[in-house]
Structure formats: structure tokens, C-alpha cells
């Protein structure tokens, strides 16, 4: 500990202040994980399959055959207006 305080890091040598802000922020918020590079996040993105209709509606596209059994009853409790099942 403490090496960072003895090491002078000139922010001018990095790409942009905003990049660094975002970098530190994301790690703090996500407990230091590079979440967007993780398979967990990629899997979440796959499930977060939103479809934007031309009418302005947003639908969740779900492939119900792929989901584990514990979720079947949960999905049934949501209205069809927001779910497009396949």
C-alpha cells in the first residue's frame, strides 16, 4: 500500500480525463470488476433482449424454452403486453 501515493501519474499522459473518470467510477460501482468484459455481463445482455417497436412500444423478447424451470411461473405472472415469447 502507498506506492500509488509515491508514484506520480500525470493525467496528461492518458487518453482523456473522462476515460479515467469512467474507469475509476465503473470499478468503484462494480466492486472493481471490469464487468463489461465478463461473461456474466454478456449473458445478462443476451437476456436483456429489448425490442423497440416502431410504435414506440418496448418489448422483452424471451426464449422461454431456454430458461431454467424456476423462472417459468415468474414469466407467466407478467402481462403479454411487455413480453414477446418465442
Amino acid at each position: 500500500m502507498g506506492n500509488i501515493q509515491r508514484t506520480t501519474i500525470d493525467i496528461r499522459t492518458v487518453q482523456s480525463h473522462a476515460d479515467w473518470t469512467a474507469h475509476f467510477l465503473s470499478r468503484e460501482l462494480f466492486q472493481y470488476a471490469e464487468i463489461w468484459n465478463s461473461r456474466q455481463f454478456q449473458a445478462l445482455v443476451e437476456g436483456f433482449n429489448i425490442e423497440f417497436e416502431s410504435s414506440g412500444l418496448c418489448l422483452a423478447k424471451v426464449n422461454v424454452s431456454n430458461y431454467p424451470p424456476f423462472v417459468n411461473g415468474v414469466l407467466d405472472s407478467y402481462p403479454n403486453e411487455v413480453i414477446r415469447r418465442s
Partner: protein
Amino acid sequence: MVDDFSLWKHGETWSYPICAPVINPETELRWTTYGSLCLIHLLTLGAGPDPVSPFLIYLLLVSATKRGVGLVDARDMNISLQSIKDLDQASADILKDWMRLKHTDNLHSMEYTPPSPLSTFLARFEYQVVISLVLFVPDVKH
């Protein structure tokens, strides 16, 4: 969903995914399912699935709008301090000092005692900062 302590960790305010380096297909499917549940909750109730981190939902929405364009990265997390404060006061307290740094300041200025929340944060971050430099330096624009 977040009661699964093998997959979620719980901060002071919000819950976050545990990013293990390797996951099996069953766990990956579970994450996909969680992604769908988060989206359905959002669309049905018009609110995030508390206590899942709203920053995670934000990133998922960014990913959804960028689908096919490219994966999200750190720059997509470049949101205002006020927005962070609205959602997570503790994180905003740490990051406000960082955001006050001028572009020409250096992290050496964080050596002051008593340590600030930011200097403590940076000290904990020592290893990652070195990695960040390695990653970022080749892209330096002079």
C-alpha cells in the same frame, strides 16, 4: 434473484454481479435469465429491479441500444456526478474529489494527510492503476 449469494454481492446500497473468471453453462444461462427478468421488471413497472444496481441496468440499456454496434466499455459509464449522487451517495462522496482534479493535476496530489476518501480509494486501487496505464498508454494522443 439477488438472494443467490454465489452470484450476487451486496454493497451498502445496491447489489452487483460477482464476476468470476470462469462460469459454467448453467450459470451463464442463469445470468441470461436474470437479464430477462430485469428487463421485464423494468418494462412492467417502469422502475429498476431494486436492489439490483441501477448502474448495471444503465449499462444493460446502453448495451441494448448499441446492440450490433459494439460492446459497452468504460466510456459508457461516464455519467455526471450529480446522477451518481442521486443514485449512490457513498460512491459520489468518494468520486467527487477525483472529478475535481484538473486535467493537468497528478495523483501525487492525493498524498495529503489525513487521507481523503479518494486517496484511500486510489491506494486500494494500486494494482489496477498500473494495469490501466499499460492499457491506456499506447492510445495516448499527443
